[in-house]
């Protein structure tokens, strides 16, 4: 190999990584979608001429970057490389090609340098709206929104007006949807400009030499990490509420064979006539991410990082459903995969894994209605469950995993809606007991002070299946939503909060790690003093 020295490679790699971070920051700051902002549901990558990622933004959903290479390969089948011109742009939200549900729009643009196609920039981001019928549990994909097969949105810098008009005619909030596509475009412009400067400054004709080397480095790093694990097949199963009559079961076999690691989901539930199906792409993203941070957290990621990892699942299962399965709530299945992978690898990596997290899967809450002045509102409540404990540390309370959705300000929610938040506090005792305690969930009580009912949309799990502990640790508390009348609201439902009524939404706790009897007395006392556990008197 005509390699760079360790300095040349570091300087170049750092430069390109900074370019994707800069592009991601541009997108984030100009986006309308609260999901992009609050739950980091996006990615930005720079790829070589073969569509292999060289640099990936650090923020965003790490697993999504892993999908951009396969996505680009599929796009290139329809739009061969020879046909691309400078200023082109292709978009798609096909859940089997892109990131697993219709609201995520992926965008690919070419990077030309001195007349030659040298690479591609890629982004995927959650759109403010994608049409369809907002309902709980669509029976098929097309009621979830508009499907965009790979289409050119721009040709040589000019918008394809027909495509734009057709798209915007089929979504709500057309201005914001277009605004976010422009935010994505702006990120692509940054990638393109920085990539061209890179080649100019380093006097390279294209990315071939650089890409070959960074791919070799990351591939070697991941393989070295896998080689540390003893060969074998490690199995675990995870159960979740799923939907009425169709509880979700994830069966996971992790096979370590030398420097390769394979994850297979044979034995998992069949696909369901409900939106919890996770396309193989999404399944792959949420398998790669927990594995990467477990095995090789420090190395920057790119195409090479994923070559040692295989993810497979039988066609027709909930983790590899066939078209036109509904998929909008794919996270209710995909987030469970981290629990299965960590349970499977716990025997060989006991100090590195965590017990089940209450937020795997995340509980999403939305309130919508009309205030007393007649103004409509629609607001997501971002709040989180407790994380699972590790061998050495208690789980983090009210912290999302495997997403990183954070929380918004209650004051901001009250400014933007007529809702009244009565309390938002830790659920004492909700963390699974153990030598290390699971993180606490929280109770959020919301009151409807208006004269009209408010729509309450809940989309979650863990009503009957708590986050389980590891190594003798106990499960965390389950999730629930209860009206002030005492009536329970199912966690996959659309219901009404009557005028004057209140609801308490209880986010689950994380699983504990190790036997509770082994918890040190000073930690038990500290838990009681802080009220994290109910204590003797309660």
């Amino acid at each position, binding site marked *: 190999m005509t390699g760079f020295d360790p300095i040349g490679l570091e300087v170049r790699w750092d430069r390109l990584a900074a370019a994707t971070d800069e592009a991601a920051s541009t997108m984030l700051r100009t986006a309308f979608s609260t999901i992009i902002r609050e739950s980091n549901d996006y990615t930005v990558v720079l790829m070589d001429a073969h569509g292999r990622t060289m640099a990936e933004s650090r923020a965003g959903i790490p697993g999504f970057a892993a999908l951009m290479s396969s996505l680009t390969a599929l796009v290139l089948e329809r739009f061969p490389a020879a046909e691309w011109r400078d200023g082109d742009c292709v978009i798609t939200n096909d859940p089997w090609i892109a990131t697993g549900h219709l609201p995520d729009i992926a965008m690919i643009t070419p990077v030309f340098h001195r007349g030659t196609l040298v690479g591609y920039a890629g982004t995927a981001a959650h759109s403010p709206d994608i049409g369809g019928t907002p309902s709980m549990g669509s029976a098929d994909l097309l009621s979830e929104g508009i499907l965009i097969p790979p289409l050119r949105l721009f040709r040589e810098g000019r918008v394809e007006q027909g495509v734009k008009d057709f798209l915007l005619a089929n979504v709500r909030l057309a201005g914001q949807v277009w605004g976010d596509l422009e935010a994505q475009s702006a990120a692509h412009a940054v990638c393109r400009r920085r990539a061209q400067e890179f080649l100019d400054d380093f006097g390279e004709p294209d990315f071939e030499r650089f890409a070959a080397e960074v791919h070799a480095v990351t591939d070697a790093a991941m393989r070295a990490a896998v080689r540390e694990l003893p060969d074998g097949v490690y199995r675990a199963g995870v159960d979740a509420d799923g939907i009425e009559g169709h509880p979700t079961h994830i069966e996971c076999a992790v096979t370590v064979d030398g420097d390769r690691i394979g994850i297979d989901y044979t034995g998992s539930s069949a696909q369901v006539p409900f939106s919890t199906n996770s396309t193989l792409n999404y399944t792959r993203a949420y398998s790669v991410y927990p594995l990467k941070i477990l095995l090789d957290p420090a190395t920057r990621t790119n195409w090479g990082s994923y070559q040692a990892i295989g993810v497979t699942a039988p066609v027709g299962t909930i983790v590899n459903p066939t078209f036109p399965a509904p998929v909008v709530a794919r996270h209710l299945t995909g987030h469970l995969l981290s629990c299965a992978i960590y349970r499977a690898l716990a025997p060989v990596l006991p100090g590195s894994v965590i017990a089940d997290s209450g937020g795997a899967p995340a509980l999403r809450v939305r309130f919508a209605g009309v205030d007393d002045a007649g103004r409509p509102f629609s607001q997501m409540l971002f709040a989180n469950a407790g994380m699972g404990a590790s061998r050495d540390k208690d789980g983090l309370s009210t912290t999302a995993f495997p997403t990183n959705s954070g929380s918004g300000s209650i004051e901001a929610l009250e400014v933007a809606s007529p809702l009244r938040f009565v309390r938002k506090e830790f659920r004492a005792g909700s963390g699974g007991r153990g030598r290390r305690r699971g993180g606490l969930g929280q109770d959020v009580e919301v009151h409807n002070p208006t004269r009209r009912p408010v729509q309450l949309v809940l989309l979650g799990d863990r009503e009957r299946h708590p986050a389980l502990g590891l190594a003798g640790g106990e499960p965390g508390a389950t999730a629930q939503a209860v009206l002030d009348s005492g009536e329970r609201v199912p966690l996959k439902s659309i219901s009404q909060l009557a005028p004057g009524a209140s609801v308490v939404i209880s986010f689950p706790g994380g699983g504990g790690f190790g036997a509770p009897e082994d918890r040190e007395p000073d930690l038990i006392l500290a838990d009681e*003093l802080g009220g994290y556990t109910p204590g003797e008197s309660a």
Partner: protein
Amino acid sequence: MSRTVRIGVDVGGTFTDLVLHDPARGLTWPGKLPTTPHAPNEAITAGIARLLAETATPPGDVAGVVHGTTLVTNTVLERTGAVVGLLTTAGFQDTLEMAREIRFDTTDLLARPATPLVPRHLCRGIPGRIAADGTELHPLDEDAVLAQVRDFLDRGVEAVAVAFLHSYRDDRHERRVRELLARAHPGLPVTISSAVAGVVGEYERASTACLNAYVQPLISRYLDALDGDLRAMGIDAPLHVMLSGGGVTSLADAKEFPVRLLESGPAAGVIAAAAVARRLREPDVISFDMGGTTAKIAIVSGGAPRRKHDFEAGRVDKFKPGSGLPVRLTVVDMIEIGSGGGSIAAPDSLGLLKVGPRSAGSVPGPVAYGRGGEQPTVTDADLVLGHLAPASFLGGEMRLETTEVHKAIDREVAEPLGLDRIDAASGIVEVATASMAAAARMHLAEHGRDPAGFALVAFGGAGPVHAYGLAKQLKITRIVVPMRAGVMSAYGFLVAAPTVDQAHSLPAALTEVDWDRVAAVYDELAARATAVLEPVDAQAIRLRRTVDMRYLGQGFPIEVPFGEEDFGRADILRDAFDATYRATYGRSLDGPAEVVNWRLSAHLPGHDVSLACEPIEGDPKLGTRDVWIPGHGWLEATVWDRYRMRPGTEITGPAVFEERESSCCFGPECRIRVDPDLTLLVDLGQ
């Protein structure tokens, strides 16, 4: 005759820097002493006494002392502040510990966030509720306030913070708590969130209030003691304190809002760079301050530093956003990265050369210092490349250990990576420079700016050394190296303007702004600012109004300037917003806009201070030496003594310039001029 002497004092972790300035005598006199960490006032008073003696200045001639301290920053980092009790709205007592519910490092499954300043058992909810529109839903339970605070005192609480929901909108409950406690427990420090940070966002406001309460007792005692010491020396001029936003304030204001003293040292450096830019009439400069452990880069536009209104104190990982405690406060907007003279170079597990963020600091310091450092640093690489002269470093006070440096670079970098010593050393400098360039590009890009067209103002011990390499990477064609690179912060204190920055949230759609209310808010903010600034000079107060705006539905507001005459003019505000948005992001949008925070910055004029001093007699040319210059390799360069150079001198590179605390070198294409302030103006050509 009126008194003209002013003194700036910057207490850093290692050294206390001082500058005395007397425009009447054309005098600028620096001083440097080791910091006395157990009692910082000892080094300050000793340093001031020395300056007064050296310049034959009677204490009574001192017109002002401006002080900057890292005490607030360190108190939070080291967790040595007061025991604080927090009162919140009932049901929201976990706001502080829940924080933003994020993982600051998504690649580290086991990363822990910063521990809250107030433990959960000292966070108490109080019945009483204000709605988002300011109406009172439930009255404040005054008995509960008194009962909880009595219990606080039983548990050793030394300061109280109060953060109720929507107090930015209506602060009556918070003010009532302050009154109640003033009566029931006189002398107990109480911080109310609406006074310290009157902006929407309950967590960030509570965090700011707690941080203020946490440092208040310590800072008050310290400032009072220092003030007393100055009076005892015969200095009866007012003591001013440097703020994180780049202004200065009175002793009383600093004691009430000590949180505003966070990071004031680094801010002062940028203020100094801005003053240099103003003297040179350079509209756009990048302030580049590289010290022992970090490099700080900031934009100065139109002679003023860019500022922002949030900050994080006490980060678990200094270079990871989200790992600290958020503070709503006006700060100079700078990016800080782990590239300093003491940053350690080593190959990583992939065989790539990494430089920083680990630093040898000042103890043991670089290998060259001979104080036990064994890992090679940027400064060590600089020595190998001829940028530092072993014999004349720090004016010859410290001889640099060349042999040990060679061994360390060979052992730790060159041999493991299969490079020769020079390639290893130049590689260390190249990697460090590249990460600073990347950070600078990123920081400028966030504001829609490109580095080309800016001039680079370099200071700090290591800033001038790396200015040329950084400028080349950023395609910057002008470099400015002021005299006395090592005491720029203290110089910043002397030029900083008395300033009061305030904000008030009134979130609303732009078309629904209640302009009477906005006018009332500004009256109130202006009255508060005047109360602080009036004793100095009521006539000279300047007001600058800005408003944080965004398109309805976006998450990140941008700050838009407007004039008093624009009150009530939503159309003008909308145009100004679109223009600012376009300048930042390259385009503007059609959708509706909303306003969040109304801001008022009130300030008095700053001081114009020259860094010039009388050149020393003698030949400024010290000889020649071989220097490794980025992009050129080894060249024989003329070595110049900056203290002997006269204004108006013009030379061409390659050249090395030495001063006590730093040095710099420039390639053969450079034309270098010495200006009347003895600043080096370097033109790199194209």
